[in-house]
């Protein structure tokens, strides 16, 4: 349960160290043989553990075990939900998708693909400067287009700024329209209950809660029979094919249970660290500001703009000083892209490239925040002089 380098790790929203119960579960499973789909006793014994894992994840997510469809990644689960719900709606003549302006790429890009290749019409609901969905606009869109809407997809907690969306209100406004929510960042960190929220579909992922990489789940209400994206053996309700990743799934369940047990204590500890980070960084760099809001948000995520700086330079200098953080997403060649999330809450393109995300986890300490506070002002100054030149060119 440690970050395996001497670096101060403030990038827990990208991925976070595996927790010991998950490491134990994974290593124990790796020693076992058996395909969970096999009919013999070796296979059945793995299947038994896998189904127990499914039940325990269902309990953590507030859904029924049958609703849980395991996938390889959160991106796969988002694609499956979005394409599946769209094709299901399109069969009934519903070709409108309602989403927000600040979804994760794993939601935004398949929606864009449906728009470009499958004739979908997309309505993007704006968000406020503090990072909350505009429910009035959502209501208006539903009132106007309701009968033609295939589904609504709204992120539960934004991955870049951490703000939590009123999914219960979204579901209420949606009426009978299916609602999907990407809960990859929120599951295991804050209250998330699939049934209580009234969702049709949601995405969760193991490695954000201390489980292994390469395992995630689409929670999809029983009876909603969407088209698969991957065709094959039909292992998961004929909606997702592929040999069960039993070790990954069983370790995912351990991590999820562990997250539920420690949620409150973790929340209190990490929120305190976050508030300390904000206070100290803003004291060191007085013109910096926090994007979104720190109250109704994930405990560990904080996004800060350092005006006039350039986040490529900030990241490099912090990395050299032994501190890891994030600038947002990059393209396949590794080039930083201006954050659509920060643009959605009203930042200019220049401001988005002056912003960094710090995401805290269990392994962080007050001393680490002091170390960040000690270097941030000079890092920002250097980056500013590098960026000014760049801008003036």
């Amino acid at each position, binding site marked *: 349960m440690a970050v395996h380098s001497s670096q101060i790790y403030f990038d827990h929203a990208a991925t976070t160290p595996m927790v010991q119960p998950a490491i134990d579960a994974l290593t124990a499973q790796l020693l076992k043989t058996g395909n969970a789909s096999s009919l013999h006793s070796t296979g059945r014994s793995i299947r038994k553990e896998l189904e127990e894992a499914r039940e325990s994840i269902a309990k953590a997510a507030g859904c029924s075990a049958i609703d849980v469809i395991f996938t390889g990644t959160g991106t796969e689960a988002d694609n499956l939900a979005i394409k599946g719900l769209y094709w299901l709606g399109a069969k009934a003549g519903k070709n409108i998708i309602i989403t927000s302006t600040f979804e994760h790429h794993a939601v935004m890009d398949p929606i864009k693909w449906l728009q470009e290749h499958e004739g979908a019409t997309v309505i993007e609901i704006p968000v406020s400067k503090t990072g909350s969905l505009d429910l009035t606009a959502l209501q208006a869109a539903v009132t106007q287009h309701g009968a033609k809407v295939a589904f609504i997809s709204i992120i539960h907690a934004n991955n870049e700024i951490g703000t939590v969306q009123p999914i219960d209100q979204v579901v209420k406004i949606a009426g009978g329209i299916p609602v999907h929510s990407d809960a990859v960042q929120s599951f295991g960190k804050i209250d998330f209950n699939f049934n209580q929220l009234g969702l049709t579909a949601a995405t969760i992922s193991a490695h954000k809660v201390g489980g292994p990489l390469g395992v995630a789940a689409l929670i999809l209400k029983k009876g909603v029979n969407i088209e698969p994206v991957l065709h094959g053996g039909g292992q998961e309700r004929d909606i997702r094919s592929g040999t069960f990743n039993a070790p990954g799934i069983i370790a995912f369940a351990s991590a999820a249970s562990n997250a539920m047990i420690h949620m409150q204590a973790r929340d209190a500890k990490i929120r305190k660290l976050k508030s300390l980070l904000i206070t100290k960084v803003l004291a060191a760099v007085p013109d910096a500001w926090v994007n979104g809001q720190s109250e109704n948000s994930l405990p560990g995520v904080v996004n800060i703009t350092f005006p006039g700086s350039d986040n490529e330079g900030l990241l490099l200098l912090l990395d*050299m000083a032994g501190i890891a953080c994030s600038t947002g997403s990059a393209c396949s*060649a590794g080039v*930083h892209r201006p954050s659509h999330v920060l643009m959605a809450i009203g930042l200019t393109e220049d401001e988005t490239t002056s912003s960094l995300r710090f995401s805290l986890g269990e392994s962080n300490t007050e001393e680490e925040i002091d170390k960040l506070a000690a270097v941030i002002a000079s890092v920002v100054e250097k980056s500013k002089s590098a960026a000014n030149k760049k801008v003036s060119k």
Partner: protein
Amino acid sequence: MSGKLKVIAAMSGGVDSAVAAARAVEAGHEVIGVHLALSSNPQKYRSGARGCCTVEDSHDARRAADVIGIPFYIWDMAEQFHAGVVENFLSEYQSGRTPNPCLRCNEKIKFEAVLVRAKALGFDAVVTGHYAITKEVNGVKTLNRAVDPEKDQSYVLAVLTADQISGAIFPLGDTVKDDVRKEAQARGLFVANKPDSHDICFVPSGDNAGWLRERLGSEVGPIVDQNGKELGQHNGAYTFTIGQRRGLNLTVPTPKGEPRYVLSIEPKTNTVVVGTHEALAVNKIVGQPPIWCGPAPELNKVYKGFAQVRAHGEPLPTKYQFDGTHLIADLDQPVFGLATGQALVIYEDDRVVGSATISETF
């Protein structure tokens, strides 16, 4: 420059910059590898020796940095590259000149945007895989030819000011290319046998004329002789280069049946002027603005040296002088087919004195 420095190694994903970075580490410097993303829409894969800044190149650069054991980042210089190199390339062609974009990239990107940024971030210098040698003479760092005449890149670096040269490190100048490849192999760098890049990186198809036509349009114009007599037509004057012989498609032969060459390009009238080989002879070259790679020559004083007018051209014995605005070369022997827009580089033996963009020839 000596002692331990903090340096940025510009890593293209090719063998030269990888070995240069490795040598900088061995020299005791603290080295950070940086790959420059120069295109906002990078090609995914290299095709042969053509192009750079593909996803594959950035991957190769990252893997080289891993093998060398240095940190690695990607810097987005696409905007600066477009403004400083690509737009300049287009406007030079539009003005009837033939630009050298590699020179502009060294001038505006590698040793300007990157060096300035590196210095602002607290670094001392930029390391590249260029083949050139810097030597300190009386406390001033000078730019000199590499030992490998086939690879010598002092010509394309002659746009660097003395200040920029002082912030540049070229670890490969003393080595021939074959040995650099062998060294890469020995260091376990899998780019050891990657083909050299040629051509213009932002024209991945290699079809320069087609690329220009797409962006500048194609307007039919006359091809005339030196007396103004029309001999044929073309699809856009800017796709021609002075000295060019092929692709003129002329139907009227000269009385003696000699080949004809492009003598000049007149963008305002969209006219291409052709003539015989003798008419291409140039005895005097005028260029501006001059850039001095070391101390500037005295005003109006005539010096003896060598002029080079192409990246791998012969050094031409010449007299040269600076009149306050122009760098002027009086060649001992004429040179043929010299395009304006190319660089005139003056050498004193192997040392680069300075350069200027050729504006007029006589």
